[in-house]
């Protein structure tokens, strides 16, 4: 492959893009675990990476990227079958993608990243907004006597707005924006973040098929436009807003143990795996 590659992280606010980046930098700079990709050298301005990784190591909430603080990080990497290469990853604010959906426009700045992207990582948090249909809810209530009445109605403004789009529709739309702006076939790694919350419910691709069927169909049938794989990534290791869980994570003898990456039935701590998949065999 070429000696440089560019990844594009896309996802809504809170979908885990920056946390992934922080865990990635910890693993790469730690160099003690077996990973598909390894850091060849430090270099460049690492202030941003060091800042977000410090927060990650202390189990503090990694600050969400805001529109003014978008950074491009460059990693010098090597891996079996890859050779040495420089990987650029812009850490784009989830807010920017939210704005694309509501304002129906993309900044030229973002468009440049789209044009240059070697691969795309689509992040989503498992707590998806499902857009449950009243028809389905009422049917379930009829089938399951005693099922609780949904708390619909109480004080909800029933005016529609694009904000109310279910997660799957938002993500399909973000991918359609990419397709609108690029001519190349895209390789997409779908990353379900906070995977520890849903790991017991099956493999990552099963999660997407069950919780986001519109997105799953869209990725599957557009095989001339996409090649995709789904990963479950637990980069934080647990819910750090719960004091006891945070304490447990801090007491681990190696912070690497916080990380879990699942693809199909295989689970590892190799957080570089989605990136290696995106860049492999090109």
């Amino acid at each position: 492959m070429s000696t440089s590659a560019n990844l594009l992280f896309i996802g809504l606010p809170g979908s885990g893009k920056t946390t992934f980046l922080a865990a990635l930098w910890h693993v790469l700079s730690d160099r003690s675990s077996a990973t598909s990709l390894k850091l060849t050298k430090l270099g460049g301005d690492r202030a941003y990476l060091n800042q977000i990784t410090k927060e990650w190591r202390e189990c503090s909430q990694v600050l969400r990227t805001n529109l003014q603080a978008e950074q491009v990080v460059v990693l010098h990497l090597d891996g079996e079958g890859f050779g040495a290469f420089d990987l650029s990853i812009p850490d784009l604010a989830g807010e920017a993608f939210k704005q694309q959906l509501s304002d129906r426009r993309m900044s030229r700045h973002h468009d440049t990243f789209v044009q240059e992207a070697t691969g795309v990582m689509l992040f989503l948090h498992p707590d998806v907004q499902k857009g449950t249909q009243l028809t389905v809810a009422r049917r379930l209530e009829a089938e399951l006597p005693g099922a609780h009445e949904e708390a619909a109605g109480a004080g909800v403004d029933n005016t529609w707005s694009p904000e109310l789009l279910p997660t799957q529709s938002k993500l399909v739309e973000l991918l359609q924006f990419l397709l609108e702006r690029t001519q190349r076939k895209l390789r997409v790694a779908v990353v379900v973040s906070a995977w520890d919350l849903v790991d017991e419910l099956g493999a990552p691709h099963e999660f997407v098929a069950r919780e986001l069927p519109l997105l799953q169909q869209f990725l599957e049938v557009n095989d001339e436009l996409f090649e995709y794989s789904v990963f479950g990534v637990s980069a934080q290791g647990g819910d750090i807003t719960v004091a006891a869980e945070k304490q447990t994570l801090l007491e681990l003898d190696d912070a690497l143990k916080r990380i879990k990456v699942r693809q199909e039935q295989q689970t590892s701590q190799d957080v570089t795996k989605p990136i290696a998949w995106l860049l492999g065999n090109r």
Partner: protein
Amino acid sequence: MADAVAADVKVKEPEPVEETDPEFIELFSGAALSATDAEVITLRSRTHLVVFVGAEGSGKTTVLASIYEHLNQGAFAGFKFAGSRTLLGFEEICHLNRLASGGAQPDTQRTRLTDETKYYHLALRPAEPAATRRDVLLSAMSGELFRMARDSQEDAERLTFLRRADTIVVLVDGERLATPTQRTSAQADAADILESVLDANMVSRSCRVEIAFSKLDRITAAGQAALDFLAKTQEKFEGKFRVRVPHLSFRRIAARPAPSSVSDNLDGGLAHAFVAWTTLVPSSSTDEHLGQPAPTRDDREFSKFGWRYFERTRRDP
């Protein structure tokens, strides 16, 4: 090279970057399409146009919304979702059937008799391997629009695009049909709408026309008398329209059946209906569309959108 440039050759000044390089790139709106925007899709690939017509409350928008709602849950009628230029438009008409709307019971936003008719786009791929992608445009229109077209040339011209319809579904309000005081009016309204559609020259020789009795669950719940009246209505329509409509068929559907009426058929017959609505009539019939030269491409329209994605996914049937 500057040295090679002849002295009399004028060097063109570069365009100011600020004017040609705006900070933002416009993306497609995602809203329901106007006839002009819908036409762009039809010019790029063979698109199946399905038009739902019916009296107010007959279930036109509900049928349209239900098709999208089924795809939200997985493959539907043997098709998988491959994209849409109108996701926001679909979401808006589905809103009143969402928990997030705050409503207690499913509802549908009524079709507004706006100045322009609106179109909803779906790109679909049959579930079987190697099947090619299809583009479908769906539209829900008030019967009033066709009555107006009958009376006014200007209104008739607004329906020009609709004359390309591959399928016209005339919805007969099943709820009214099941109500003794309203059933004759419901029958007459539907017949009048189909008359108006025919008078407006909407129906090409290759167009499939289906009379769909909606809200079947309400008719069934009303008992045998309602079912008998439905059968009589069908018989009446058959006699009245068969001669004028070469591809006439009848169907009974419940796009959003009440929970109590749902048994094995969760989609209320909508899946079978959708397959028929998106299937061309047999090729032995004269297809007026195929006999005509391809429409000219209007570059101004194309410049409004990238449409690269559609270019790349274009598949001729």
